[in-house]
């Protein structure tokens, strides 16, 4: 009995001793430490080294979009991991409201830039690079020499942000080259049967010219019967038709009145097909044609070629 009690008491003392160590010891340690705290001022990120289209002028592609690549370096003195995003803008420099203008395929584009995997977290690495891609349409305003906006250019600007503030942006400029482009959208056209000495009268056939570039367009015309410069409009089974027997104009006409005779010499027609402003619509205008046969000297089937060339018309003159 006494042995049991002694054993119980010894166990109890042991438990109490362990509990005491567990409870008291941390309090002694606390008595030797004091807590401190501080906050770090946020530093706004700074952009530098902008590169637009690799440092080259931008050349667009007929009737389609083109991806334009840009790069930017962002520095944040709190560490590169503090950089949260970069907003990229690409705009014609003189557009109203500049970088803050609304997006418009002719004058202004916005891109969310994508970070490269070059930031080492930990605080000593302060920089991170970003790529921004802008998908430009074929009718974005040209700014090169000879264009309507030759006095300006296009600006790429990138503005970085961290979780708290937007930082300092950086910009680069390049030209957008003029793109002179058109399509001839036609259907099969039948003049019917013409008698020798007859003509198409007030009935015209037309070819529609659609603008696939980034400036206004005129066209120039020439043609030949069988070979360039032969001064013919048609070469027939029997004989040939003079080149001026094929007439054209920018509006409908009666043959022999206001139609312009085709010529060996390329001749400009003031058509003024407008630059596009909507990716679903291709501005277009028709060119009207009429034809007449000589009274003698031709027979059978006839063939010929008309050459329609797009002409730059930046000032719509």
């Amino acid at each position, binding site marked *: 009995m006494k042995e049991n009690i002694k054993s119980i008491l010894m166990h109890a003392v042991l438990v109490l001793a362990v509990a005491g160590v567990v409870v008291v010891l941390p309090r002694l340690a606390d008595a030797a430490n004091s807590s401190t705290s501080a906050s770090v001022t946020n530093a706004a990120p700074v952009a*530098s080294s902008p590169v637009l289209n690799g440092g080259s002028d931008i050349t667009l592609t007929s009737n389609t979009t083109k991806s334009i690549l840009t790069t930017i370096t962002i520095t944040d003195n709190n560490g590169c991991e503090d950089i949260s995003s970069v907003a990229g803008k690409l705009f014609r420099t003189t557009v109203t409201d500049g970088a803050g203008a609304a997006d418009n395929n002719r004058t202004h584009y916005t891109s969310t830039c994508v970070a490269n995997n070059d930031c080492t977290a930990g605080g000593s690495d302060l920089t991170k690079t970003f790529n921004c891609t802008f998908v430009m349409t074929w009718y974005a305003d040209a700014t090169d020499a000879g264009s309507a906006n030759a006095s300006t250019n296009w600006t790429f600007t990138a503005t970085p942000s961290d979780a708290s503030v937007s930082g300092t942006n950086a910009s680069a400029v390049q030209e957008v080259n003029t793109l002179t482009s058109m399509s001839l959208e036609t259907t099969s056209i039948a003049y019917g*049967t*013409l008698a020798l000495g007859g003509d198409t009268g007030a009935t015209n056939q037309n*070819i529609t010219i659609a603008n696939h570039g980034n400036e206004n367009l005129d066209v120039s015309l020439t043609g030949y019967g069988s070979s360039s410069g032969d001064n013919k409009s048609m070469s027939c089974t029997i004989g040939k038709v003079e080149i001026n027997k094929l007439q054209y104009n920018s509006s409908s006409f009666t043959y022999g009145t206001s139609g312009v005779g085709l010529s060996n010499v390329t001749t400009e027609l003031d058509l003024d097909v407008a630059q596009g402003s909507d990716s679903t619509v291709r501005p277009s205008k028709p060119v009207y044609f009429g034809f007449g046969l000589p009274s003698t000297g031709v027979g059978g089937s006839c*063939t010929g070629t*008309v050459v329609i060339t797009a002409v730059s018309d930046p000032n719509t003159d």
Partner: protein
Amino acid sequence: MKPLVHALVFLIVLSTVNAIGISPPRIIAEGMNRGTQIEKLVFLSGVNSRDEVTIAVEGEVASWVSVDRELRFTVPDATPEIPLVFRIAVPQDKPNGKYTGTARLTSASRTPLTGQQTSVSVVAGVTLSFDVEVTGEQVKAYKITSVTLPPTSEQAPITLIITIDNTGNVAVKPSLVKLMIADKFKQSLLSSANLTATNAVAGHTKGNITLVVPQHLKPEEYWARVEVYDGTTVKFSQESVLEITTTQPAQTTPQQPVQILLKQVVVPPTVRTNDVIKLSASLENPARPVSAKFLAEIYKGERLVKVVESPVEQINTGHANLTAYFTPTEDGAYTVKAYVLYESVKTPLKESSFVVGGIKKTPPVEKKSWWSKLLILLVLITAGYVAFHWWRKTHRRRIW
């Protein structure tokens, strides 16, 4: 009664749109001295595959103009853009003055109209205009398009690359370049140097001035400010990050002219029809990063079959590879003429070749491995044994 003539029945019976575009449509060359030349890169786009393109140059400068392609060629399949390099070489005997000319580029379908006894083809074209000013005077005109400081390692010199677009007719270089380096917090100026260029950029060209500066900075990021002077005027200034690394960055001798080198084009020597062929371009970039793409013209005999290209990619300093793909549909011997496009520059052509032969064989029927057969056999034996014993058990006569 006058005889009738079946004339001009149809104007262009085509199932596809006839289209063409050019950018830029003008080459303006001012201040050209006699005996000098200028090159410009233009792009033809929007033309239909397999149409025939014809280039005809007219005007006062017709004999001065050449192009790096045949004057009549067929557009290969799936080619959104065709690069053309036009060169204008001013003769030695031309008086001062302004001279003009045009190149008319036309696109026509090669498919003849069928079923029509009488027809008129309509050909679409675009015009590239030339405006050349010949002068005996020296014209100095240039702009600095970029200043680059590639990363460098500790103990290695800093390389400063100034890209100049020289639109004048005399060689140009900056009169002075100042380089100032501060710590990454811009709190203290660590070093500064006044530099003088030894090489210049020739007239009517785009090129680089490379400057080398010794340094003893520790591996770290720094801020570098560069000021480029023309006389006493600051023509260009920029602040950018300069990185000093601990390892040697991939960079060739800084004294070399900066340009992309297309070292080789690798294609498999023999392939089968309908195989997808990988064309690999091996590039070397001795200086600053540039955006570039690789193009390969694929010929079968004399006929241009297709132009394939890689996506535009950022080519950093050092070695790089670009890849394009092609699938031949006919047997025969093919030639590849490849180049790289970057910053309005087209590298010299690199040629390679391959042979396409035979229809792609269907793969042989895969034979089952021996161990799978053994496993099946064992399963069958086991199943048979179990079935036999079950049958015996169920059909054994009872003795009691």
